[in-house]
């Protein structure tokens, strides 16, 4: 059946042939085809294997609601699984493969699952994946889990490019069927800025799939004409291949535009664009989707929704069978039968579940008040069996179980739809602000009603937005009413009756769910997987709810729906990420000395977003410790230079700047002299240490604050909060200047001599003129403005020199050149850490959000005389208790051993359990000066236990180590070096 004559189709060009391959089999379609319509035209009814039972499956629908026909689609450079054949636009050279089978699509070895269906019912995982424990990794995960499922990913990087964009409009029209086109025209003529989004690649919706007439013109031609008319309006943007997938707060919508999925090569252009659309108003004209009926073996290839058959027939000119039967509970099934017959297709029977149906079709056998209880045919349906025992041979069965309005986007903000007893469908109820629902999405199934509803809703929107409304008349339309009667599930069959084809959920699973106590719809969904996965149950959910309602002897409305959540159709993770992938997701910040450090062969480390030099290996150094030890020793011996630009810098000015600092730091700042720097400890208002740094007073009303690298953003935010929300009476202003200044620490006994070579002559930085903690605005290298601070993190005679960032690269080169005679070394963050631990300075490891000023031994620093953040709560008993933790130093009793950070501390000969835990080691390092391991940490009452030996326990690698409590100041405890 390779050659199928194509009938006339409203949206194809039969003359333009397109070659493509499905499972390496070459096929030919025509321009305007989808993969599904082209495959059907080539007689290929077997598309896929089902999720759990690996049953042969065909195609059920003609749109994005498709549960069965999922394929692996070769897109530009990679295979994308779970792509709906019903939405893939055909192009020359397209490649697609079937998925979820072992062996071929025709002979899937996993089809054996179908014979074990009794064991694979709802709750199978929950009941089976329990014991024995060893089976989990050996059997359950690798074997059973992989047997079920959809397509598999290539597990390679997605080579496609994705983009993001923002759009704004007065009115967003969602869906370009008759209602959407009418709404767009009405709004456009009234001057609104309109965006019309359509997920399909043609406009018209069901106008292309049906044969209705509008103003005596064929519907599909009317849609074409109106599109031409719409294009004349400069205030309208029409976006095809664009799925609006979510409705969010305040009129914001998410939409995915597929830019290159329909062409062979993206040509380096973005494949998809994620749009965020800001709207004043929106109108949901997404139409309605037909639903299924549950009967025995209703999943065979060749069983389709009745409306889909009509779509393939009218839009694509494909008759999907030679002997077509229809099963319906409403007038719409008859419409399909009539149109098939009128097109010359062979309709063998219409089975109408309604007794009173007045429909009839000449020459077509009709069974009224009758239902189908079973079907036959493995890879394609061969026959159906009616309840009265009649068997009818057929190769294609259309099913019409009624229509579900596409209300999803109206429910994304927790809206609960209401059940309509007459139309047998859910209708939108509490709609998000700014949205209106019109047309079939609003339960209007007669074309003239659709048009009228759409025009009326748009008129309301036009008026709400303050425009004067110009009247638009309702076009004259053909069409007929639905007239539906309930028929959800055909009982009395021993065969399985499918409800959700994508997840292989049968009506028995719903009964079982009820019997086992999962009555609520949300439980039903989780227990049976009804309505999950890529189609989110668009053809199955209401059917499942109706069966549950029948079991519970209540109405569908009382059973209710599960919560609707975005996305309406699947959105690729790559699309959500856009350009923010890999390093683009979180770009590095580079310091001004980065290029120079790279030239030096530095090894870098990420600290926050920053890349900082960790150490500078020499060619002969094989281990990082060699480099770090050398940098520490050389710095302490002569001079070392380290980039400290990453520290947060905040410039604070104003008459009350001093008072402001008094209040944000725990220690006093108001009396800091001009030209001096002071260490500041910042608490949170609950008394816990937040951040620390130094602040310099450059003039009476001008301070320069530094923060830790990690808290630079947070501290600035906190200061703005204090300034704007707590103390508005203070005259103070500030700006973050972290990026504005390149700053270098110059440390070591020769640091002054080195600096004197570049500081301009008119600035005296001798000890008596520029003592420890001095600061000043100076010039260097013949006039370059700079700031000099005599502060020391290393414990050596040390300075920090800041220049505007653009001079940062030059300055490091000048410093290193000038330092040659002193054998100046650059040092990285590791050496910085070693030296601060040797000196006993707390850093991020110590300020971990649990530690108080008292724990740090800085309790006396806290100002009691004035209000400052955290001082009051610092007074609580627990903080002042003598047994509280104290920052002290630790050394191994056996000097050759190494301390491990994170080890917990216990008194000797006591059990190592939580109740006996006395503290922990927070920072450890090897001190090249002391030639053994040293550490800082917190232990209860530590300052009164100097000399005691305790046990450092590291349960991760079962290390027990005797350690001695010592002063945290391992080196130069009197601070003579830094004052030199």
């Amino acid at each position: 059946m390779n050659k199928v004559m194509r009938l006339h189709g409203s949206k194809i060009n039969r003359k333009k042939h397109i070659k493509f391959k499905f499972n390496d089999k070459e096929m030919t379609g025509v321009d305007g085809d989808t993969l599904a319509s082209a495959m059907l035209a080539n007689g290929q009814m077997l598309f896929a294997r089902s999720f759990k039972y690996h049953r042969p499956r065909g195609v059920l629908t003609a749109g994005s609601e498709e549960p069965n026909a999922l394929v692996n689609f070769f897109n530009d450079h990679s295979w994308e699984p779970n792509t709906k054949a019903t939405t893939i636009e055909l192009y020359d050279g397209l490649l697609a493969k079937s998925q979820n089978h072992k062996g071929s699509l025709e002979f899937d070895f996993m089809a054996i699952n179908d014979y074990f269906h009794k064991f694979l019912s709802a709750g199978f995982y929950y009941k089976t994946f329990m014991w024995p424990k060893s089976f989990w990794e050996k059997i359950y995960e690798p074997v059973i889990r992989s047997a079920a499922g959809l397509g598999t990913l290539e597990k390679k990087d997605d080579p496609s490019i994705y983009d993001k964009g923002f759009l704004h409009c007065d009115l967003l029209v969602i869906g370009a069927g008759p209602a959407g086109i009418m709404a767009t025209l009405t709004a456009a003529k009234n001057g609104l800025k309109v965006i019309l989004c359509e997920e399909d690649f043609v406009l018209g919706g069901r106008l292309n799939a049906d044969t209705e007439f509008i103003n005596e013109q064929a519907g599909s031609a009317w849609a074409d004409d109106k599109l031409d008319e719409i294009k004349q309006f400069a205030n309208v943007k029409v976006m095809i291949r664009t799925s609006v997938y979510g409705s969010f707060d305040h009129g914001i919508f998410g939409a995915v535009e597929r830019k290159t999925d329909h062409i062979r090569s993206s040509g380096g252009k973005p494949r998809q664009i994620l749009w965020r659309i800001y709207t004043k108003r929106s109108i949901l004209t997404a139409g309605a989707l037909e639903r299924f009926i549950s009967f025995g073996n209703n999943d065979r290839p060749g069983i389709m929704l009745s409306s889909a058959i009509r779509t393939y027939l009218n839009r694509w000119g494909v008759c999907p069978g030679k002997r077509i039967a229809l099963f319906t509970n409403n007038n719409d099934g008859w419409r399909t039968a009539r149109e098939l017959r009128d097109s010359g297709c062979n309709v063998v029977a219409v089975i109408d579940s309604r007794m009173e149906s007045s429909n009839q079709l000449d020459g077509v056998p009709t069974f009224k008040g009758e239902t189908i209880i079973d079907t036959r045919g493995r890879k394609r349906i061969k026959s159906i069996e009616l309840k009265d025992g009649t068997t009818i041979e057929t190769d294609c069965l259309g099913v019409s179980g009624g229509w579900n309005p596409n209300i999803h986007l109206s429910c994304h903000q927790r809206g609960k739809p209401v059940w309509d007893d007459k139309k047998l469908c859910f209708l939108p109820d509490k709609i998000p602000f700014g949205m209106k629902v019109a047309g079939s999405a609003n339960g209007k199934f007669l074309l003239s009603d659709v048009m009228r509803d759409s025009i009326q809703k748009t008129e309301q929107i036009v008026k709400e937005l303050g425009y004067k409304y110009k009247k638009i008349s309702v076009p004259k339309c053909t069409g007929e009413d639905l007239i539906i009667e309930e028929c959800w599930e055909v009982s009395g069959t021993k065969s399985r009756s499918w409800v959700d084809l994508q997840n292989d959920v049968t009506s028995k699973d719903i009964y079982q769910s009820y019997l086992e106590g999962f009555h609520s719809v949300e439980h039903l969904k989780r227990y049976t997987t009804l309505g999950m996965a890529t189609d989110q149950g668009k053809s199955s959910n209401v059917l499942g709810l109706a069966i549950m309602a029948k079991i519970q002897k209540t109405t569908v409305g009382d059973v209710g729906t599960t919560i609707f959540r975005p996305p309406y159709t699947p959105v690729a993770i790559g699309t959500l990420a856009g350009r923010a992938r890999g390093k683009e997701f979180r770009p590095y910040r580079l310091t001004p000395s980065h290029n120079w450090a790279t030239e030096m062969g530095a090894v870098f480390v990420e600290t926050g977003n920053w890349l900082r030099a960790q150490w500078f290996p020499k060619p002969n150094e094989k281990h990082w410790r060699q480099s770090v030890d050398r940098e520490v020793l050389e710095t302490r011996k002569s001079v070392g230079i380290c980039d400290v630009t990453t520290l947060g810098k905040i410039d604070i000015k104003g008459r009350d700047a001093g008072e402001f600092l008094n209040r944000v730091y725990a220690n006093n700042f108001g009396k800091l002299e001009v030209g001096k720097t002071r260490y500041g400890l910042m608490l949170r208002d609950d008394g816990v240490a937040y951040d620390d740094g130094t602040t310099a007073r450059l003039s009476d009303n001008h301070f320069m604050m530094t923060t830790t690298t990690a808290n630079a953003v947070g501290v600035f935010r906190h200061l703005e909060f204090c300034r704007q929300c707590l103390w508005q009476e203070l005259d103070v202003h500030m700006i973050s200047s972290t990026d504005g200044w390149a700053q270098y620490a110059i440390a070591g006994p020769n640091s002054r001599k080195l600096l004197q070579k570049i500081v301009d002559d008119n600035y005296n930085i001798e000890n008596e003129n520029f003592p420890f903690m001095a600061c000043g605005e100076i010039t260097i290298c013949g006039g370059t403005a700079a700031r000099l601070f005599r502060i020391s993190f290393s414990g050596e005679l040390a300075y920090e020199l800041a220049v505007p960032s653009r001079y940062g690269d030059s300055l490091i080169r000048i410093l290193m050149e000038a330092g040659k005679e002193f054998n100046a070394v650059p040092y990285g963050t590791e050496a910085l850490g070693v030296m601060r631990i040797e000196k006993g300075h707390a850093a991020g490891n110590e300020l971990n959000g649990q530690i108080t000023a008292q724990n740090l031994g800085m309790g006396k620093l806290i100002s009691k005389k004035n209000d400052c953040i955290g001082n009051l709560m610092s007074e609580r008993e627990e903080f002042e208790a003598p047994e509280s933790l104290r920052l002290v130093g630790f050394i191994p009793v056996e000097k050759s051993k190494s301390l491990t950070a994170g080890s917990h501390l216990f008194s000797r000969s006591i059990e190592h359990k939580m109740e006996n835990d006395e503290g922990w080691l927070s920072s450890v390092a090897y001190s090249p000066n002391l030639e053994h391991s040293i550490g800082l940490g917190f232990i209860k009452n530590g300052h009164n236990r100097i000399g005691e030996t305790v046990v450092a326990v590291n349960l991760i690698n079962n290390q027990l180590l005797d350690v001695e409590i010592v002063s945290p100041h391992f080196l130069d405890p009197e601070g003579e070096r830094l004052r030199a």
Partner: protein
Amino acid sequence: MIINHPYLGPRDASEFVYKGDANLINRPNWDSKNSHQQFHDYLYLRDNPEGEHKELWYHEQGDRSWLIVTRNTITHEVLDVKLVRDVSVGKRK
């Protein structure tokens, strides 16, 4: 989500940072009689209303102003946006 900034007009919520209950601007007086109890309540007790809630948002990717946003916690409707500075001017001693 959109926050209608009093100076800058409607801005996307991604430009803002959320802090919490707007009551955080009412920091107790440190030397009042039962200041410890007051600070305890200020720091640790929060209302969790269903419906209208006044909360602090910081326009970090904008003009750095702290705002009091009145938001319905059920519908996310933003009912009112004010600069903190405008709210508490004159309230201070």
